[in-house]
């Protein structure tokens, strides 16, 4: 018995290289965002970076606008994606996995190139490149992230529950609202988070889809690190910290819901 515990403790050490790696390349970098956000370029403590953000109405507006765009994208993806996931999970296809694969396959083409092709599509139909193009492109890029988790939870659902509800006299609408929908909630939450997080933080897609007409919060952060030079890094770090708070809040929202139900994520 002693030998076994010794062996287990020996194998415990196998995780140490990765733990060291995580501390150095995940924890320390995140702490550095805090450090830079609260310091001047000279390294003195300051809250000026945040004061500057809240006093620049353009920056605050961009944040609000980005969150609104991400929210609308998420809602559209949910409205389009849920029926698709539902049909795929319920229909008896000969090869249901093939249908699911078809929805994931486009993700294998570089998303920037797909975005450029979307711009071309809009040009061909003579449609203007503005908010509409932005929303279309975002939904286009992230719809699979909504469909897949919902499809997964629906597919794993115990079908006998539907039959039980039917036997107990529930009509079709009741079966859906009282059985299927509540059971698919974990998948819906995963889908919402998986669409909202990348859309609220994206920076390249908006530039390409609107030819730089619309600036999102992600682009604002990117610019402070790119064109601004060293003087802007601390401000950029403060913006990143605000983004980090939004992301942490969103993921907390997911984990709260997912606590003891099976996670219906991509894995």
């Amino acid at each position: 018995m002693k030998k076994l515990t010794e062996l287990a403790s020996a194998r415990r050490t196998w995780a140490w290289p990765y733990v060291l790696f995580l501390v150095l390349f995940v924890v320390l970098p995140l702490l550095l965002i805090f450090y830079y956000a609260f310091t001047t370029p000279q390294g003195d403590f300051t809250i000026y970076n945040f004061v500057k953000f809240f006093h620049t109405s353009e920056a605050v507006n961009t944040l609000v606008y980005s969150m609104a765009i991400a929210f609308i994208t998420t809602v559209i993806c949910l409205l389009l994606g849920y029926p698709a996931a539902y049909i795929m999970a319920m229909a008896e296809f000969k090869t249901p996995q093939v249908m699911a694969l078809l929805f994931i396959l486009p993700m294998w083409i570089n998303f920037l190139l797909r975005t450029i092709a979307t711009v071309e599509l809009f040009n061909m139909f003579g449609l203007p490149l503005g908010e509409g193009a932005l929303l279309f492109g975002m939904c286009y890029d992230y719809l699979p992230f909504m469909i897949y988790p919902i499809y997964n939870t629906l597919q794993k659902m115990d079908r006998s529950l539907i039959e039980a509800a039917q036997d107990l006299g529930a009509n079709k609408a009741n079966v859906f609202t009282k059985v299927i929908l509540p059971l698919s909630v974990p998948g819906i939450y995963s889908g919402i988070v998986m669409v909202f997080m990348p859309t609220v933080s994206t920076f390249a897609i908006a530039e390409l889809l609107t030819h730089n007409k619309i600036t999102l919060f992600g682009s604002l952060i990117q610019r402070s690190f790119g064109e601004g030079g060293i003087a802007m890094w601390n401000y950029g770090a403060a913006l990143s910290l605000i983004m980090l708070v939004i992301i942490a809040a969103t993921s907390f929202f997911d984990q709260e819901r997912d606590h003891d139900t099976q996670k219906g994520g991509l894995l």
Partner: protein
Amino acid sequence: MSLLETMQNAKCKMQVESAAQQEARRRSRELAAKRVAGQAYLWLLLVVLYAPILLIFIFSFTQSKVFGNWTGFTFHLYENLFTGYDSTAQVRVDPNLYRAIFYTVLIAIGAACIATLLGTLAAIGLYNMRSRARKGITFLNSIPMINPDILTGISLFLLFVFLGISRGFVTVLIAHVVFCTPYVVLSVMPRLTQMNPNLYEAALDLGATPAQALRKVMLPELRPGMISGFILALTLSIDDFGVTFFTKGSNGLETLSTFIYADARKGGLTPELRPLFSLIFLTILVLLIIMNIRTNKQQKKLQK
């Protein structure tokens, strides 16, 4: 019971039956209509989803420099892509494109190999840990998966700047290992929990050295998880733009993603990208079809 009564009874039954039959037929027709509507919806979504890709594919067969401008069917772009020389314009195809392809593949394979090694060891270590330590590390492991590209990219950018490390190939490689490894850990973990924990000890008791027990007992059990983790890491690395963008520095290192971005910002798109991605897409499509046929065959064998 008189004959008349029986006949009437039978007639009644027939009527009932035919009513039930009608009901069943109506129902099955309704179901069929529903299924068709459902299928139509899925196909409509797929058409929209594939329209831009189809556009790339179609315009890979025309020579025009401008994407969306049809100047007649030709294989010229494919020729240019493979020879590296545009015979019509008498210029070389942008050599940066080939360097970008080279670095994309190199970084993806390098990052996936390191991530698979690091992640598998970490999963074995985690499996043998006490639950509190395991929970803490699992949380750390989930951070790179939750963090959007831009935050992973910027935080690493700040680290490299802070430590005075000049950005280039190595920093991009490290950054890719950061966001790939968590997925390897998550792919290997279920294999460990499914494995009989006594197998490894049994091998040791039977006289295997720890290295032999690892290679002959543990590794074959973990291999499927490691392979799926490796493939996932490969695809994540190839598709990445955000993290690479912030960690690549300005020494001219480009991957395909950053190359396309720089190209698009300049206003034009290197036309040879169209045949390149058409070929990538077709290759993956064929691979998936083959994989699907194989799993179907295996399932049929199992059923027999």
